[in-house]
């Protein structure tokens, strides 16, 4: 129990730090969002001072002291009020995020779980058949594939499968004439649109798990308890799964949650390339437009997501690995 409490406490502290970080970073640099918006609106044409004034009044750019901004910020977070997006005024930030969240959640969730499973299984096989041709192929192959910049893969997929072959749509989360709804037709359409972005991530995603699992399992297979399991005459399956893989998978579980942060970042690239209506694309847009409220809320959501995933992984690890419960207690 102590273990779970400690992890929860860490979660809360980290959450606070992340919340504060999110507040601080955007304010470290000068710059006026209203001007940025007008600048974007007018492109390279002359910026009309009247327009800037109008925008600034409308957006209510804060000019109070930092401390009171911070208190207001914390207060509104507690109320679930993340403010109004500058870019999409007058739509509130929560509206924008709630529109984008499901896309990213599904995209990242599905690709990560698949990547993890594929990688772990392949890594386990490679370790079991250590130094076989399969092992060399899988480890070297995953080294190489894992090195591919996945925005580059995304570009190639986009060109080959969408532009040239025309098998998949080149952008968007759904067809132009389909309005999101809870229906099989829409789900099918959304999956169809999600295949290329998912594929871009899935090509590289398993590589890390393969290597991690292989190395862990090579180690666990060399441990005395695995040798003893063999000596006990247990079936190959039992030795490989309950002794080799069962222990080897534990570090990967922790790694899974940690990797999530990186992956969520990576989706920024993929979502931008495929114009996929998720959090990553929204983040890039908010950054470009200096949309403070939207950006802050996005960071917060992404960070909370990652923190929650970590907490879950910690709990899962606590269930899977009897040792950590004890150590922390």
């Amino acid at each position, binding site marked *: 129990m102590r273990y779970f409490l400690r992890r929860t406490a860490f979660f809360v502290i980290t959450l606070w730090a992340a919340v504060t970080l999110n507040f601080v970073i955007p304010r470290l640099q000068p710059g006026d969002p209203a001007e940025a918006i007008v600048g974007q609106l007018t492109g390279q044409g002359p910026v009309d001072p009247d327009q800037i004034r109008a925008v600034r009044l409308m957006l209510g750019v804060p000019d109070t002291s930092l401390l009171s901004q911070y208190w207001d910020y914390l207060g509104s977070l507690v109320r679930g009020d993340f403010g109004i997006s500058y870019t999409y005024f007058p739509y509130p930030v929560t509206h924008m995020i709630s529109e984008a969240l499901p896309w990213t959640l599904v995209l990242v969730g599905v690709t990560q779980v698949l990547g993890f499973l594929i990688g772990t299984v392949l890594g386990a096989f490679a370790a079991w058949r250590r130094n076989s041709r399969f092992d060399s192929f899988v480890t070297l192959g995953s080294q190489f594939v894992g090195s591919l910049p996945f925005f580059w893969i995304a570009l190639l997929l986009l060109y080959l499968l969408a532009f040239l072959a025309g098998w998949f749509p080149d952008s968007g989360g759904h067809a132009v004439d389909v309005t999101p709804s809870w229906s099989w037709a829409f789900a099918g359409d959304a999956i169809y649109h999600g295949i290329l972005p998912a594929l871009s991530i899935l090509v590289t995603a398993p590589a890390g798990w393969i290597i991690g699992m292989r190395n862990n399992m090579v180690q666990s297979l060399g441990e*005395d308890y695995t040798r003893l399991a063999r*000596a006990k005459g247990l079936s190959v399956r*039992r030795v490989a799964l309950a002794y080799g893989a069962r*222990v080897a998978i534990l570090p990967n579980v922790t790694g899974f949650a940690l990797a999530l942060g990186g992956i969520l970042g990576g989706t920024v690239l993929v979502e931008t390339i495929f114009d996929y209506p998720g959090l990553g694309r929204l983040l890039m847009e908010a950054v470009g437009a200096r949309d403070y409220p939207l950006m802050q809320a996005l960071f917060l959501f992404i960070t909370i997501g990652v923190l929650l995933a970590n907490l879950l992984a910690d709990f899962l690890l606590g269930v899977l690995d009897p040792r950590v419960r004890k150590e922390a207690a």
Partner: protein
Amino acid sequence: MSLLEVADLSVAYATKNSPPTHAVRNVSFSMAEGECVGLLGESGCGKSTLGTALLRLLDRPARITGGTIRFDGTDITALDENALRPLRWRALSTVFQSSMNSLNPVLTVEAQFRDMFRTHTDMTSGEIRRRTAELLEMVLIDPSYMRFHPHELSGGMKQRVALALALALRPKLVVLDEPTTGLDVVVQKSIMDSVRTLQREQGFAVLLISHDLGTVMEIADRVMVMYAGSVVESRPAGEMLHPYSRGLLGSYADPRAETVDVTYIPGRPPDLSRFQDGCLFVDRCPVALPKCATEKPPLAPVGDGLVACHVAPSTKADFADSTFVRSVRAVAEAPPVLEVTGVHKTYTRRRTSVTAVDDVSFALRRGRVTALVGQSGSGKSTIAKLLTGIERPDTGTVMFGDVPVHRLRGRAMRRYRKDVQLVFQDPFAALNPVRTVRQTLVRPLRNHLGLSEKDARARLESLVDTVGLAPAFLDRYPHQLSGGQRQRVVVARALAPEPSILIADEPISMLDVSIRAEIVELLDRLVHHRDLAMLYITHDLLSARLLADEVLVLNKGTVVEDGPTIEVIRNAQAPYTKLLLDALPNPPR
């Protein structure tokens, strides 16, 4: 027909980038059903490799390169895993060396019994649970522990579980590979007693692999001695004939005797990646003949056993030139240099506190060795830390003359450390692997004696000479030294600042049996030549008897008995001291 028939078995470790190591060389032996055979040898002699080969558990890069293993009439040398499986555990089981790691950390004890029963029997869950409980009771563990995970058990319990597991299917042969290494003497003894009892009851054969001569001699019907990958002797426990076996035996003695003498075997084992003609022991043998260097002696019957030696049939080797003799001697009175009075030390970790040292008092005097005897956890290492100022006592005082060691800080502490130096237990951990002997030894000279780099270097040769090393060793790195040589360097470092007190924390326990006496002799010489006060920390009453003038027996942080060494040993009063004495192996010589 024998249960196990090993013929001409060789095992090599072949890695791509270095020459193969021939760990087991043409070993042949057999075991009868129900026989208890001890396989004795020092670390690196190939005994564990041999045991693993018999179990067919060798992993790459180790490989059987020749010979056959017949078990119960079947040649198992080349059987594949599937063919081996029916044999495994039903007929042939094992207990591994490190009890810490031989149980799966994420499975409960019960689960580790269950998967084995499921594989080999048709027992129902209920039957399995009952049988598991029975087995645990057999090794004196409460059956309720079956729901626990390995990390919740103590080392001794884990090893008992491993033993219960090994005996679960009533196998014909159990290979016990150093089953008690790392456990306390008392626990060791009780586990070995269990093994012996169960073996008598159930009649399985045991191959007991151990470096601990005492244990083997006590338990085994027959002893096989391995040296450098070969079996050099095999005979019923008792007097041994091979010079190496005799050397090993010589390192044991009865501490109660008036005069105790122990021998050591100079030199180190040969390089196993090379084949050499003749006897592998020739370089260290005190009675070697010219032909020993050229002609490999066969394992041939001599007396009631077999010996591979040209000399043994005719001559009983002794190691008179490498013997350390200790008789009872008068202890000179001297004023105390360090006085420990009523120290307490309690560690608190995550809300549980452990009293490591409880009201301990003693004094160290020049020219005298005080031994602190106890098992691991008795608080003896904590006392060493208190004396060197690495830890502070909660209460009580440590006075060095009029210097209150328990209150020293910073520079004063550094000054004090010039006078109190430590000899560490593990010579492999005590020397920084990236620094040469010279670099290591020059530091205390510079820091404590304030010598210039040049003067310090000039002093080094005489320093290493005092510990019996040639100046050439100065430019070596630790990994280029043997265990004994390392320990000499450690001693030299401790001597460098010319301390008045030397604290030796189990300085020989990590060394091979055959060279322990060598270090004991060195320490004894230094104490008397340099008129040092020494605190000798050990778990081993024999070495305490060899070195110490007086002894304190420590149990759970408290001194249970103290006095002149010979008195305490001959006339033990405290039950704990008696237990320690009981656990002391005393093989016939």
